[in-house]
């Protein structure tokens, strides 16, 4: 049965396939790049599915488990971006990010048991976490694009960033609202300004600022890029950085590291 003991094998195979795909993309071999990257995603997805079966619950409870989803969704989002806009460097960055998140799970093993506390036993659990992770990965791609634009001192990538941010904000909104509906079921209130919720609102606010800035101030590329970078930083804060704050000790979103 697939478990955390096998993760290093699946992660290594996936990373090799992702890097091979990135090299093919760099050399302009689009079909090979797509094929290798998709195979890497499939191997990683098989591990997640196997872990789901062996744990007898969705692997979404701990930070380590959410990193699995982020790693695979990051590569999925980058592959979609590459297939649509053919930026040859994007698979390289997504492969690095996927590798980093896999490596963290290998070198910082955390508690991964089968228990799922009662508050997490809800129909909202899977859509809420997966949609959030997917939106994070889309915003991660937009962040990579903003960095590329800053390095090259150009705003030519921002139209791609717009597409990613619109899709990412749609998923972010769904994640936030599904969380609000779930919070009403579990805690009796849609929104309680818990640290996690507050940072979700901050992240959402920054991406709304970006969208409005792109509508009204289309030529201010630097402002748009800064907002993308700030949004990504706040997103990381919302995901795991919030756990480092003193206020997080009283958070209702602490389910285990």
């Amino acid at each position: 049965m697939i478990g955390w003991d096998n993760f290093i094998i699946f992660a290594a195979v996936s990373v090799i396939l992702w890097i091979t795909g990135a090299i093919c993309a760099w050399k302009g071999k689009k079909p090979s790049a797509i094929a290798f990257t998709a195979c890497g995603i499939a191997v990683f997805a098989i591990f997640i599915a196997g872990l789901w079966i062996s744990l007898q619950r969705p692997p979404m409870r701990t930070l380590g488990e959410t990193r699995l989803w982020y790693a695979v969704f990051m590569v999925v989002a980058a592959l979609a971006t590459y297939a649509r806009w053919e930026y040859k460097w994007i698979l390289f960055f997504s492969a690095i990010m996927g590798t980093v998140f896999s490596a963290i799970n290998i070198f910082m093993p955390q508690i991964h048991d089968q228990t799922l506390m009662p508050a997490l036993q809800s129909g909202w659990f899977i859509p809420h976490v997966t949609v959030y992770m997917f939106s994070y990965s889309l915003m991660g791609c937009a962040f990579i694009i903003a960095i590329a634009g800053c390095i090259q001192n150009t705003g030519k990538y921002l139209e791609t960033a717009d597409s990613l941010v619109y899709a990412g904000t749609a998923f972010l909104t769904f994640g936030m609202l599904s969380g609000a509906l779930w919070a009403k079921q579990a805690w009796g209130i849609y929104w309680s300004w818990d640290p996690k919720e507050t940072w979700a609102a901050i992240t959402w606010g920054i991406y709304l600022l970006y969208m409005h800035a792109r509508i009204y101030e289309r030529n201010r590329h630097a402002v748009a890029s800064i907002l993308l970078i700030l949004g990504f930083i706040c997103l990381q804060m919302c995901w795991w950085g919030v756990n480092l704050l003193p206020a997080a000790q009283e958070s209702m979103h602490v389910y285990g590291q």
Partner: protein
Amino acid sequence: MAMRKTYAAWIIYFAAAAACQLALGDFPARIFAFPVNAAILLLWITALSIFFNEKPRSFLITLLSSRQTTFILLGIFTASCVFQGLSPESITGTWWFCATVLALLSHLFIVILKGAGRIRRFKARFMLNHAGIFLAIAGGFFGSPDTYDWRMPVSKEAASREAIDKHGNISYPGYELRLESLSTDFYDNGVPKNYEARLTVNSEKEAVLKVNHPYRLSWMDDLYLSATDNAGGSDYCVVQITRQPWKYMQFAGILMLLAGSMLLFLQGAAATRKKGGWR
């Protein structure tokens, strides 16, 4: 309107809010309980609608519909949230935060009125997103004085009628609860898997409470299982009672925003690009 005038107006507005905070302490939300909050909401949106129709070029309407206002208010709201996110203290009850939310709602309302009167592509997306945010925030903001969150210790021995709020004040929600049975399922390693409490309400109705499965007692009151004795078989639990008469407004806003976010995904950024702007 000159940009300088817009900035000056918002600086004066937020300075006034800061001065109120210094002079009066936190915003006295409870004095705005129903029917005061409902009356203010109606008067406020009626006044804004009349102003919008009769004086569309007035200073107030021009200020509330300007794009600088969008950036200023979104920026101040996000910055206030950052402050809240880094601080262990809650700032949501301050004059500053209330002023920010009220200004944001006023801006949203005028933007919705302006958008509703225009022929545009992707109008449904625009309306669902903006009206959804408006309803969700307005329901929380105006409904806050009528919102109560109590805890009631409930046992098998005697029916309970007293509930306690987070400040330790005792209230009487108007019904009595008695515990009939309490059970806990465990994983093999001893970690609790699920809790279930069976209660009677006013010695008549039976209510079953589980985590994530509240009991709807009335149109504004819901019961939640807040705490139990993990050992199971106990004759004591704590029931959370939430009273939220404005939750339907928030729920409507959330549904509209969900629909709007789906359209945001389906129609994408190209919709905005082709038009060169929404307004």
